[in-house]
């Protein structure tokens, strides 16, 4: 038996309430959901069973693949855009500014309610929306551009807008670990701007970039509200299908099975992304610093 110090015993006592809360409202529900994905539903009632029917039903349906592809596509486009657009801003904040005013200004926009932002994009992109009416008044188009709203484009623009501040937060905290001195040393030793970026900064903040990418990806690929309100018929995703099982249609075990299949798809994307960075030699081969 390992000896536990007084400090540690007190530490365990202090984290116990949260542990209990997370056990009851996070771990147990997740296990329950997994167990339920093997149950059956009859006339909106759950019947405990052990069947793979729910998984088989999802996997034998071509629609399921199509919707999952849509979800992954939303997630990937949003994650790429968020990281690519936020990285220069994070770089600027960490290396070119002294105060935190700009950083806070961006973070505050994160608290502009999620639904309000979806609504705002609907007003902007709609066929009577700001972009279309302005373009028509300027005489650049005669017909409103219908594809702006109710399309995957609208979903991705909105999700990117929602995710940018959070992505930036993660990237800034990752870049703060890469000390200015390393960057200066590399420049002094004759590295170009690009070399500093790809051979010093990126390998050192690798974890943060992967973290920002995956967070954005998971949250936007699993989002069902934005595609439902802005995605149109072609923009339907697995998330909407799962949400509907738990609201109207009512086959909970089927919904649970699809949720776990979606999580499995997320895991595949994660492994693929890490492999890709490895192949591009952007991942660190060894530890550079503590």
């Amino acid at each position, binding site marked *: 038996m390992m000896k536990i110090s007084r400090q540690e015993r007190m530490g365990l006592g202090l984290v116990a309430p949260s542990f209990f809360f997370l056990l009851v409202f996070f771990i147990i529900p997740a296990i*329950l959901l997994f167990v339920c994905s093997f149950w059956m539903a009859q006339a909106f009632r759950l019947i405990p069973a052990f069947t793979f029917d729910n998984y088989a039903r999802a996997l034998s349906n071509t629609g399921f693949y199509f919707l999952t592809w849509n979800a992954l596509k939303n997630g990937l486009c949003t994650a790429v855009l968020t990281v690519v657009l936020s990285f220069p801003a994070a770089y600027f904040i960490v290396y070119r500014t002294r105060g935190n005013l700009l950083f806070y200004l961006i973070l505050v926009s994160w608290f502009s309610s999620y639904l309000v932002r979806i609504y705002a994009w609907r007003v902007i992109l709609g066929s009577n929306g700001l972009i279309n009416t302005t373009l028509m008044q300027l005489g650049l188009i005669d017909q409103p551009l219908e594809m702006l709203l109710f399309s995957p484009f609208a979903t991705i623009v909105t999700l990117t807008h929602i995710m940018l501040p959070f992505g930036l937060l993660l990237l800034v905290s990752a870049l703060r670990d890469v000390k200015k001195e390393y960057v200066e040393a590399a420049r002094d030793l004759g590295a170009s701007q690009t070399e500093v970026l790809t051979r010093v900064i990126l390998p050192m903040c690798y974890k943060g970039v992967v973290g920002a990418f995956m967070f954005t990806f998971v949250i936007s690929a699993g989002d069902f509200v934005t595609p439902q309100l802005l995605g149109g018929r072609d923009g339907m995703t697995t998330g909407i299908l799962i949400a509907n099982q738990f609201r109207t249609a009512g086959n909970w075990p089927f919904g649970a099975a699809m949720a776990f299949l979606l999580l499995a798809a997320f895991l595949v994307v994660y492994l693929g992304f890490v492999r890709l960075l490895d192949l591009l030699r952007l991942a660190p081969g060894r530890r550079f610093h503590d």
Partner: protein
Amino acid sequence: MLRFYVWLYVAFLYAPIAIITLFSFHSSASLTFPFEGVSLRWYAKIFSDTTFLNSLTNSLIVGASTAAVTTVLGSLTALGLARLKGRIQTVFGLLAFGPVALPGLFLGIALVMLFSQVGLQRSLVTVTIAHVLFTLPFFIEAVRSRIEYFDLSLEEAARDLGATPLQSFRLVTLPIIGPTIGGAAILSFALSFDEFIITVFVSGNETTLPLTIWSMMRRAVSPDINAASVISLGLSIGLILIGGLLVWYQRRLALSARAKDLET
């Protein structure tokens, strides 16, 4: 170049919010330019809507309860984590971060499954439970970095000088980490106030503000949504600003006090 890009980035973030705010004061129902005139009619309309007012009250109640519970749980956890080492700390840190690493959809359906299996009626209580689950990871993350720098030997010194554990907490620990905890509590409130994805599954008959905005959006595009949105935006952004200023002011006070100590 880069500076220009960053300001463009900020403009992109704020433009939709600015547009909604502008049109919430529009005197006509049109949501397009040219802007015809300023009026408060949409605010008058929304403030006479009892559904809206009820859901606003509910959101404030849920936000305050969430912030209270999260602050207690989160502060204890952050203080506990500072005392733990090695694997236990890593494992618990990961567990505590789990709820935000998954899509809200997943948390929503898992919770609604739990509530239905144990027979707990969906109400503002279940909404609060869900919100605590969602805000706790953010709270712990926000407070943790500050507490990691907290020197445990300060507490020990107080204990050696005869303070009880409670006294050393109240007189030594709390004044140091207090402002951070206050800021994180406000953060929890704001996150709860805006939460929609999980809430949609776990709420019963009583609605919160985002649920009301959602049902307004599904009905028709009516300009009073603009007013409702701006009220919602104003409350959460205003709160965050107040919280931020509070933390900043406290830190400045502490710094100037320390500078004075050094002088004497």
